[in-house]
């Protein structure tokens, strides 16, 4: 179906159900309960899950298949974001041109950087991409201020030309929309104590995610994808087989750059603001962590990794001491204080510590990432049953 094998089609269907029902799945705790804190089903965070999922899927096409570890992919995300905001400013507040142009601009940008960086492999390639991304970051924050808005960033304004919309009309700055349907618009559905938020922007991002996830499956299962895996396995041998590895790695680099640009375009479609920090090396490192955590070279892994990291960043970071005391208030005072004292460094501002520990556990015990670990578990269960 759709040119996919049965298993791949089921995987696509699984992801479809998951993203479609995310507003419900991510809100398992009733409003006002002790654990409502852990609900992640609000539009802003769900959009981030999906957008970083797209970013990580693309990154994984390069890193997972060819083994080329880019430390500068945030540059393409940033370039896409700037291009997107400019489209919202100059052309129309409709998000479609912004999303398309972000992808194209990031593609051209990555063609240039990839062409130079791919002259080297291994650590030298990583350093080259890192250098390019840091240069882009520095340029965006300083000399390119007329284009990027410098350190304050670039955003839409009331007096933007918006040629297709007929320019400024007075009133408020228009919000990004899809043919009049605003990205920020949500429908709230209350079922008992549960409140589910169905957001326009989220479903646009989810729709895009499904398309690019489908494309990623096709790439993984194509002769092209097999060549990329062969490059990771033994690039020397491939050249003695009559294949030139360079155009393959460059194509993979540009495809993953376009995925990053698309993610950047969606970010500004949700919130029309782009700053240089989006290009910083920490942002490039984050997508590396997402891929490794979820499972390098797997299809679902990067999405899972993106989800977990964004969940930690947004949910764990909000758990403060007051909340901890509230949860453990049923305990005797002395014990309560000890427990809160133990948990304290791992949550709130210390969320990086929990994430770091989890990352270490995954890298040491599950070299294939979380998805690799789950696959291994299933295989073991299945083998035991079949015996």
């Amino acid at each position, binding site marked *: 179906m759709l040119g996919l094998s049965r298993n791949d089609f089921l995987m696509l269907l699984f992801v479809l159900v998951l993203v479609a029902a995310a507003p419900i799945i991510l809100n398992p705790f009733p409003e006002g309960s002790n654990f409502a804190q852990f609900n992640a089903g609000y539009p802003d965070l769900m959009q981030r899950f999906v957008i970083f999922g797209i970013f990580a899927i693309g990154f994984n096409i390069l890193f997972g298949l060819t083994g080329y570890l880019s430390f500068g992919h945030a540059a393409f995300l940033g370039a896409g974001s700037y291009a997107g905001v400019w489209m919202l400013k100059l052309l129309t507040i409709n998000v479609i041109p912004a999303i398309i142009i972000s992808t194209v601009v990031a593609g051209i940008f990555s063609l240039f950087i990839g062409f130079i960086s791919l002259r080297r492999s291994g650590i030298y390639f990583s350093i080259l991409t890192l250098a390019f991304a840091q240069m882009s970051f520095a340029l965006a924050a300083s000399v390119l201020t007329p284009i990027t808005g410098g350190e304050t960033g670039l955003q839409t304004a009331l007096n933007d030309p918006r040629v297709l919309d007929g320019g400024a009309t007075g009133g408020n700055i228009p919000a990004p929309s899809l043919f009049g349907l605003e990205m920020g618009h949500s429908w709230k559905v209350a079922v008992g104590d549960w409140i589910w938020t169905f957001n326009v922007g989220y479903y646009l991002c989810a729709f895009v995610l499904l398309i690019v996830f489908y494309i990623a499956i096709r790439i993984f299962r*194509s*002769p092209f994808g*097999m060549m990329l895996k*062969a490059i990771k*396995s*033994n690039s020397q041998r491939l050249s003695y*087989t*009559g294949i030139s590895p360079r155009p393959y790695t460059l*194509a993979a680099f540009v495809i993953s750059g376009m995925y990053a640009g698309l993610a950047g375009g969606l970010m500004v479609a949700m919130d029309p603001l782009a700053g240089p920090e989006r290009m910083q090396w920490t942002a490039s490192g984050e997508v590396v962590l997402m891929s490794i955590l979820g499972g390098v070279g797997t299809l679902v892994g990067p999405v899972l990794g993106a989800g977990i990291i964004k969940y930690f960043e947004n949910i764990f970071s909000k758990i403060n001491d007051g909340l901890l005391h509230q949860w453990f208030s049923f305990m005797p005072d002395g014990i309560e204080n000890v427990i809160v004292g133990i948990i304290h460094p791992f949550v709130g501002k210390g969320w990086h510590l929990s994430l770091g520990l989890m990352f270490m556990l995954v890298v040491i015990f599950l070299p294939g990432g979380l998805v690799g670990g789950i696959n291994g578990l299933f295989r073991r269960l299945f083998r035991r049953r079949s015996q």
Partner: protein
Amino acid sequence: MTVALEVKGVNKRFGGLQALNDVNLLVDEGRIHAIIGPNGAGKSTLLNCFVGRLNPDSGTVIFDGKNLIGRLPHQINQAGVSRVFQTPEIFGELSVIENVMIPALAHRDGIFELNALKPLRREKDIRDKAVDVLDDLGMADKLDMNAASMSRGDKRRLEMAMGLVQEPKLLLLDEPTAGMSRADTNNTIDVLKHIGESRGITMIIIEHDMHVVFSLANKISVLAQGTVIAEDAPENIKGNPKVQEAYLGGAH
């Protein structure tokens, strides 16, 4: 008889060692040409010069009217020269069938093809071709095995399948039967003989196993200390005093 490969005055020096010293060879088309010689004679170095892994200091290697020196490995392969490596160089993370489909695709599509959305399952012709070659080599039951998990002998046979599937004009075999059992060695001899005769593939074979050499070769060149000391038909090589001297270590 036409000449498939002409090697003229090839020299290669590594520091103080003259690895190849004015090597000249004529390889006849459609024949199996063996290169033998003691360890360190420069046999693998010579093959490396044919496929672009090494650039000789001087000399030419003419194949199909074109000089191969200075060309990139993938260009030489696309010109019709495939190499089977001494230590198996396979794609360990991929399956056996994929290992053979890659060179088959390279043969059909050239150095680059952006077929990113075409399902691999639809490449039935390529797959059938790969299965045929693997079947010839007695590996039809191992198609979906992970290439890295195979025995050394199986890896050698996989290497050979990767070379043969490209239907090259010239096949370079670097000790193709090293590490194989006697039965597998005999099977490999039969396969190479059969394919060489039926498809008219020219082969250059480096081998230590004299049983293999004398079963296959139409012509033998003997290399010692970087120089060709004898080139003759197999029946004349055994009695050549220079060859006996080189193998008995009395060359100095």
